[in-house]
């Protein structure tokens, strides 16, 4: 009984973290799957979202008498439009020059080399901006809710689930679900999928492919930052925290099938659960080693990922 209890006590937060990874992977797949861009700066978008949350909660708390967890939820809601605009702007200024219609027909490698340099550049730039603005000391949003737990079960089998983590999990899953429905059901979503699937043919029906890639990039940034704010309620943010996540997130995206939106969510969830459960059997430092061992094994068994390999498939 004690064993099962310990296992469940580890599994519940692992699933919670897996859902966060899943949402981040789904956001990543909007860039990777729709625009065919490998964005190395995505990790820094998480960091940016986390700092946005920490700072905004500090600011709001200076004159509002609300619980800081409630303020974090407000910050998360605000992060989405702010970072959507940031993403659209960044795409227009930088990424549109190395991706989309400009490169699809005219470069041999689909512009990947140029994209690598641009997104790595953005990544390094942001890391140093964070370092200058916020210093290297880790910060987070502390609140009573993120240190309270609900007890589940009976006296024989009882586990504790953190209240803050439960709320965060529900929100990130809802965000993924809404985004999925948006891609599936709306005209704009269909146009984005068409632009992802056959960019030139999309142009022939009158779709402005680059504009739709810009929207995809904005949505990706918006979701990533929203999730980042929520992460700051349980994970301390430092200038380089995004880098801890980005490689693992790409593993999730690849596992989910190279750009399928909902596949990326499942891929991220899988990777997250494996990573968090790994500490039951290996030391903490080897967590990611185990993640990649399992990732490579799964990839050998199923090279196309869990969900085929196309963005437009969702």
């Amino acid at each position, binding site marked *: 009984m004690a064993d099962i209890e310990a296992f469940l006590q580890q599994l519940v937060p692992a699933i919670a973290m897996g859902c966060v990874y899943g949402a981040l992977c789904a956001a990543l797949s909007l860039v990777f799957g729709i625009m065919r861009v490998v964005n190395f700066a995505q990790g820094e978008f998480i960091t940016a979202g986390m700092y946005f949350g920490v700072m905004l909660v500090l600011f709001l708390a200076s004159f509002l008498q609300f619980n800081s967890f409630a303020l974090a939820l407000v910050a998360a809601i605000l992060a989405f439009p702010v970072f959507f605009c940031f993403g659209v702007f960044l795409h227009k200024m930088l990424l549109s020059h190395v991706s989309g*219609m400009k490169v699809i*027909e005219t470069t041999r490698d689909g512009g990947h080399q140029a994209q690598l340099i641009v997104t790595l550049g953005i990544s390094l730039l942001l890391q140093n901006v964070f370092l200058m603005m916020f210093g290297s000391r880790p910060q987070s949003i502390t609140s009573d809710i993120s240190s309270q737990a609900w007890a589940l079960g009976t006296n024989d089998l009882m586990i504790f689930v953190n209240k803050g983590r439960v709320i965060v999990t529900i929100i990130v899953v809802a965000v993924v679900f809404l985004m999925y429905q948006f891609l599936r059901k709306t*005209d704009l979503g*269909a*146009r984005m*999928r*068409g632009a992802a*699937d*056959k960019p*030139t*043919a*999309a*142009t*022939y*029906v*009158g*779709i*402005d*492919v680059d504009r739709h890639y810009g929207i995809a990039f904005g949505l990706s940034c918006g979701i990533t930052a929203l999730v980042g704010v929520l992460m700051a309620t349980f994970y301390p943010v430092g200038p380089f925290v995004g880098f801890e996540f980005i490689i693992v997130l790409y593993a999730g995206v690849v596992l989910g099938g190279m750009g399928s939106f909902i596949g990326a969510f499942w891929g991220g969830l899988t990777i997250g659960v494996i990573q968090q459960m790994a500490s039951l059997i290996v030391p903490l430092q080897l967590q990611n080693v185990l993640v990649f061992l399992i990732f490579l094994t799964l990839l050998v068994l199923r090279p196309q990922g869990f969900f085929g390999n*196309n*963005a*437009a*498939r969702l």
Partner: protein
Amino acid sequence: MLTCDNLSAGYGGADAIRDVSLRVDAGDILGVVGPNGAGKTTLLRAISGSLQIAKGKVVFNGTDITAMAPHRRPGLGLAHVPEGRQVFGELTVAENLSLGATTLPAGKSREERLAFVYDLFPRLAERRGQLAGTMSGGEQQMVAIGRGLMMDPKLLLLDEPSMGLAPKIVTEIFASIVKLGRTFGLTVLIAEQRLSETLASCNKCVVIASGQITASGEREAIVRSGAIEEAYFGT
């Protein structure tokens, strides 16, 4: 309807078409015929704008579209059904068709176009929920043409609609094209390597070889002139 003046275009410096001039009048079914590599696809892409032109001018219904962004040209009624069909393979037939109507306002006009396309290709109506990528070549060609028709085009550019299809399907596809032209009065430009069906369907003809137009005019005159044999066999 469409005028091209001295168009030159190509890939990485080398021109694949040189000084091509042609005219399509309202109601024409124009066949652009020539062997593989003659420059037919290049010409169509220069017209619809997915390939930048090096020199020359394209005028569509009185509007100079030479410098117009390619995605804005369908809004004028210029539909390009590309070589190799390029259907949105991961989208359903219905979604493919609905994307074809991107330039139309939502509502009644879209419904009417959809009914028109389903009437022309009843098979698409049966398969509306199927992923386009899982259909046969002939069915995909119907999706591609149907998608082009959804915008209610004034000019339909068809690039090699027979490519990779069984003879029976080719006959069926060309019958639909002729119906569009003769019954519905749609202006059509067909670029084809395949001669028999194309010549049987068109009323005007342009012969293209090695990136240049070698003959153009009424179909009968072109057939009699021997220009086609010259383009294909170099005699």
